[in-house]
């Protein structure tokens, strides 16, 4: 599946600016004594045109970090840049436009609308934005994701892997600056999970897409180009050699008592 796809050309990678960045990001819940800092001063950059995994034990703040990066959650302090835009300064309407035009989402629970067919689900963000998707791009995406003969089906008539591929097509159709994936293989069996991860990697390497994935699975993270490790709301290192055993080692040392 991760072969070069004829007819698809890599987008020219924007040279300098990273896809996303966080500066001294803090997210606290509660107040005073009882305050919990889910993110405690995280600074990092997500390079463009790369597949980045965010890992960490439960409660490390990896989901909160992704939500803040994607503009789904507002940090208590610090800044989040998407492309060159500081999205922490944006109001609801502007954030909505950012979600619609500049990022794509793939979630563990697929988040497809059960009333719409696969095709309608794929086109939904474009329809919400009142845009006509680029037909050539759309056709090659559908072809790449192997959805051509599933377009008329409702999500309930599709397997988990197929549903998640519909979600990926939906995320990629608008050529977003970043695709955020939150445990995308969490609800899939091993085979379709690996298939999906290969597709995500293809989208990065062949199509120049930037992808950020949150996962707790070292094998899934092994599909990425680099892994960022989180612990207790703080950055706890990164891994560039993405062999599963290396990642596992790093994770294990992370969980150990300091």
């Amino acid at each position, binding site marked *: 599946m991760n072969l070069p796809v004829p007819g698809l050309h890599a987008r020219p990678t924007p040279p300098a600016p990273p896809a996303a960045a966080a500066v001294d990001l803090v997210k606290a819940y509660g107040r005073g004594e009882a305050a919990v800092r889910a993110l405690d001063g995280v600074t990092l950059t997500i390079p463009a045109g790369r597949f980045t995994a965010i890992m960490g034990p439960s409660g490390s703040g990896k989901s909160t970090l992704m939500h803040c990066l994607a503009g*789904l959650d507002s940090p208590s302090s610090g800044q989040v840049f998407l492309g060159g835009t500081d999205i922490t300064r944006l109001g*609801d*309407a502007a954030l909505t436009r950012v979600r*619609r035009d500049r990022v794509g989402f793939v979630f563990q629970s697929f988040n*497809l609308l059960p*009333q719409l067919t696969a095709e309608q689900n794929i086109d939904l963000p474009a329809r919400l*934005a009142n845009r006509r998707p680029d037909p050539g791009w759309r056709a090659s995406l559908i072809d790449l994701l192997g959805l051509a003969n599933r377009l008329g089906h409702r999500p309930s008539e599709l397997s988990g892997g197929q549903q998640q591929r519909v979600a990926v097509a939906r995320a990629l159709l608008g050529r977003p600056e970043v695709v955020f994936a939150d445990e995308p293989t969490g609800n899939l069996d091993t085979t379709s999970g690996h298939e999906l991860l290969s597709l995500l990697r293809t989208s990065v390497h062949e199509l120049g897409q930037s992808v950020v994935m949150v996962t707790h699975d070292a094998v899934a993270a092994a599909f990425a180009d680099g892994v960022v490790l989180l612990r207790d709301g703080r950055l706890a290192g990164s891994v560039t050699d993405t062999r599963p055993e290396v990642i596992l080692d790093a994770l294990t040392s992370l969980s150990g008592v300091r």
Partner: protein
Amino acid sequence: MIALALRLLRLGGRRAWTSAGLVGAGVAVATTLLAISVGALHGLDERESRTGWRTPAEAATGTDPVALLRLRTDFAAGRPITQVDLVAPVAGATPPPGLPRMPAPGEVWVSPALAELMGTLPAGDLAARYPGPATGLVGDAGLQSPDELVAVIGRPAGDPVLLAKGGSDVVPVAAFDRTGDGVSTADLYRQLTIVAVALVVFPVAGLLGASARLSAARRSERLATLRLLGASTRQVTVVAVAEVTAVATVAAVVGVVLEAVLSPLVALIPLAGSGWFAADVRPGFLPCLAIVVGVALLATASAVGGLRQVVVGPRGVARRQRPQGARGLRLLGVAAALVVLLVVNSALPVVSVDAAGVVFVLVILAMVGAVALIGPLVVRVVGTRMAARARSVPGLLAGRRLLDDPKGAFRPLAGLTLAVFVAGFLAPMTAAVAGVSSVDATTLQVTAPPSEVAGLVQTTRARLAAIGLPATVSTVGDTVAVLPRDPAGLDRARTVLDGLAPGSVAQTEAEARHEDTVLTADLGRGALVVLVATFLVAATATGTAAAARVLDHRHTLRLLTLAGTPLAVLDRARRAETVRPLLVNGAIALVLGLFCASPFVAATAALRPSGLLTLGGVLVAGTALVLAATAASRPLLRSVTAPDQERSR
């Protein structure tokens, strides 16, 4: 966008159908009532346009009138007969509507209903009052309603009816082209109808708002996904509102069609003393369209209003901010509402009848606002007491939940509280209607010129004796009173008097008050209809809001269940948190309602047996409805708290 919204909202599951059906039924019933009200207004106009010729404008001096007209109200078998005497009618002149030609002197034209009555009653009771047998029938074009009793009689010039007392003055008529006299009772009915519509509209708006909230709560994850994909707040609102608007629009069409279908039956309901031609009570196409559009707009507006407290974010549907407590500041609003009431109350006698209805709607608006403002405050107070004194788990749970979110807890109660307000407003009226003291209905009274009173008494006694009708004949001033020993002889005695003093008005006290009696009866009937409609709509709203509240709190409820709280305890807590605040709120609303009614009837009228009966019924029905509404959402509670509960879509 709308098409997408409707596709997303395609109903699924029996629960969705049930709730849509309930809302639809509530709106359809309300729309039918609205259409009937508008139809009644239309009918009143139509009636007026067909009967205007009987109260013509006076011909200018110097022009030749086509006839002299005199109007009087006669009675037979307890029913009023409109008698139109045309003196010296000009043959060949344009006749009044419903007549083929100008009646010649001595001719008697009667309405079909009067012809029938003349056929059933003995001649001495009715037919003998007229100069001859019926010449022909008055057509529909000249009649108020199919059951109206009308006689149009041609009289020669100089006929003694010209001089008779009672009845209207003799008017020289230029032409019978008048389509309304401008001073009819229709104006009063128009104002009353506006008030009735206002009373029904608020509970309907509450229902629509509640159903929008339920619609959003049920689809919270779907709406969140849309937000995630970049749908704006406005787009999501469109989706959430679309269902309510669609259901309400369909229901409004159903309601209007239902009114048209029912119009022959509606036409049988007497208003202002008579029934209707079925076509009169059908509002016509444009008003019907206006009703449907109006209901759709109301639905959209209330639905948007219902969603105001809800924010649909990309990560789920949440209540806006933290639910705020109900602050004492609200009392200021209530005080303002009372000031409005007092000002309007003192201004009411000055305001013309035309504006009275509209002015009164302002009062209702102020009172509705007061009820809505005070409600959460009362809930908070009740919650504090319950939580402080609770001896049982359900009591404690209920008290805490009331305190946590007084506004949310009041929402299911709002509709019924308003309904109780309406009941408080209408109960004294219905009681006043039932309480109309019995007036004399057996003694005929005739006013005669003073010089003729003695003679009239003499001849009356002689004539009554001659036909064998024993009666007491007496005089009070220039009034002659005739009391037949057998009440069944009333109409025969009247016929005798009519013959002796042609054109005079002989009627009992009860008959003289006939119009008032009709008005009070209409008021009572209308009040009852409004009351029943309000309660039905309020019950639907309560059920809907209760269901939305279960969905809003599903996480808490589920945690309580997982922690081992039995469903029965949750249920008891839910009952406690609704019934007690309702009783307190209801009592306040009742007082406000009585207060509101005070410009019309003394509030003490509600203490009459029939008033107490209405109020007691309202209280029992209200409590029962709340319990039923809470019970209706029990299956939802069970499914929300079920351990294997899948994320509800």
